[in-house]
């Protein structure tokens, strides 16, 4: 069960490399949120309500509903062009994604050898997702796509925490998810302002400050 879900997550990363539409990227983020919820649930050994409510809040409410809603709201309100407009071709990003997967799996195998309490497949996909997030941030010039890259990176980090198979103290994971939500809100605020000040939301326009 876990393996199937993890592979689904990997497929969603591949889908993110092929798409050209912002809307589809947002849907991929929502699907990833649901996958993360199911994954966490399937890993729970003993059932308890507090934990269930907590995980549901973190993944279903925040990652699968609230954040995608905020993102599409941002796009609608700022009349952002609905295409991704990357600096590289789809073929190139798909090709790099394959390389990232290869690297991730190598890391996974390696991690499995060095530490018994790691789930290698999960670890590999988690690392791939983190790298994919960074790759999206590097190869795109739109601020909103950067934000989505950051979210994919965060999802990878969430997966990594599952791979490490250890429970965070509640206060820490609550703080973490609140921080992420807040950073999306603040970033959205800035995107709105940048749009109204610069009248476009490419980072090309954000290059006045340099030495």
């Amino acid at each position, binding site marked *: 069960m876990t393996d199937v879900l993890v592979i689904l997550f990997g497929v969603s990363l591949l889908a993110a490399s092929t798409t050209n539409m912002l809307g589809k990227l947002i849907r991929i983020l929502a699907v990833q949120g649901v996958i993360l919820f199911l994954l966490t649930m399937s890993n729970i050994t003993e059932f308890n309500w507090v934990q269930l409510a907590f995980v549901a809040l973190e993944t279903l409410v925040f990652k699968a509903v609230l954040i995608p809603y905020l993102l599409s709201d941002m796009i609608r309100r700022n009349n952002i062009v609905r295409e991704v407009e990357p600096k590289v071709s789809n073929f190139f990003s798909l090709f790099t994604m394959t390389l990232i997967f290869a690297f991730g799996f190598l890391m996974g195998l390696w*991690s499995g050898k*060095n*530490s018994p*309490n*790691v789930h290698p497949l999960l670890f590999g996909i988690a690392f791939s997702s*983190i790298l994919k997030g*960074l790759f999206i*941030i590097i190869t795109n010039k739109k*601020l909103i796509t*950067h934000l989505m890259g*950051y979210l994919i*990176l*965060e999802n990878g*980090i969430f997966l*990594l*925490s599952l*791979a*490490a198979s*250890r429970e*965070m*103290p509640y*206060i*820490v994971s609550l*703080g*973490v998810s609140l*921080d992420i939500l*807040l*950073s999306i809100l*603040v*970033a959205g605020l*800035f995107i709105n*302002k*940048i749009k109204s*000040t*610069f009248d476009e939301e490419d980072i090309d326009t*954000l290059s*006045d*400050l340099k*030495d």
Partner: protein
Amino acid sequence: MPIILIIPVLFTIIAWWMRKPMLNNTLMILHALIHIAMVPVLYFMPDFPWPIRYFTIDALGIFFYLILSVLYLATALYGVGFLKHPGRSHHTLTATSTMMFVFSMDGAFFADNLGLLWVFIETTTLASALLINYDQTRHSLEASWKYIFICSIGIALAFVGILLLFVAMPPESSLTFAWLVEHAGELSPFWLKISFVFLLIGFGTKLGLAPVHAWLPDAHSEAPAPVSALLSGALLNTALVPILRTMPVMQAAELLPMARNLLLLMGLLSVFIAAVFIVRIHNYKRILAYSSIENMGIVAIALGVGGMALNAMFIHLLGHSMIKGAFFLITGNVLRLYGSKDYREVKGLLERDSRTGWLWLAAFLLLSALPPSPLFFSEFQLALGMVGSGLVWQLALLLVLLTVVVYGMARVSMSMTMGRDNAERKITLPVYQWIIPALLLTAGIAALFMPGFLRNLIEQSVKMIGG
């Protein structure tokens, strides 16, 4: 401890509710006063009124708390008169963000758990991003976007470091520093090494260490003077806390040489980057920002050298916070007098406003580590420590780079303060605009005479991080 955390939250709620500029100012100054009044309470009665979970009061935390208290009071008093707000909600936003900013730094100083420390450091980013966009111009918007984005990614990488630490741990473990130090031997050295690299890169981003310093010059130069002072004097220290607290873990796991080499490398690189840029840029606030990168580089080097240099590191942190805080406040005066951040447009500062001119020169001399600056003693001790550890060529490189930095700053300072001033219109600055920086500079020098409790704090902190 509960008081420190409850007061700012309470005040923020009140300020947000009422939205009255007068009330905002009162609350902020009241918060600053309570903040500084809590220093002796923390020192003598750490458990007053009751101890709370997830936080420990120790010398390291109190040391940074003390620096923040002094700076916060100074910047709050300066800011109340200095910041001209376009509207009521802008005023409220600034006041609440400032209080939450200080709140999150306090939390970071005393958190006893790496995860919680991470949460507080991420919160500092969010709270201060709005402060950097105070002017609401194109440039400040750009600076705050870069700040929030680069720091968030950096901090996310630090979180990967924390997760890898989990992988390194045996079952039944916790993230508290006490546990980590005690059980460091049981951690897998392989994963601990990787984890430390991630932590260093992640928190190093916030600390402004090269090569991940890109946000720092932008944010420091675009923020208004009191905010820059807080960013440079307090926020950078906060980002150092997690690195300081993981050092004993590395020591107990016998991985100290690796950690030290990394810190030395990043420190030298930071000083190098600062030296390269300081001699060729024209924005005087950016020059000061690069000087912060340089000083954080020196701190990282001192941490990398260890031993006697650790004592030097704490003195350096204290001196740098006071002097750089004052210096950024002085740039507020200069900006008001000339309306430009380009040093070539600032001429004859001594004639236009002699007090600001002399303050500028004094701050420059102190920052260049001329005696009686505390930085002189710290850098001297650091040099001795480096020779003691056999790091001779690194020391030679450091000295050359520091000379370049001092040359670059001297060139700018001379060109700004000397010369004829041909302005017809005289602007007189209010008294507080020179008294507050002057007091801060004095505090920096006075720290040299080391009141007993300060020496005690530094000694205990050095012991904590393994001196």
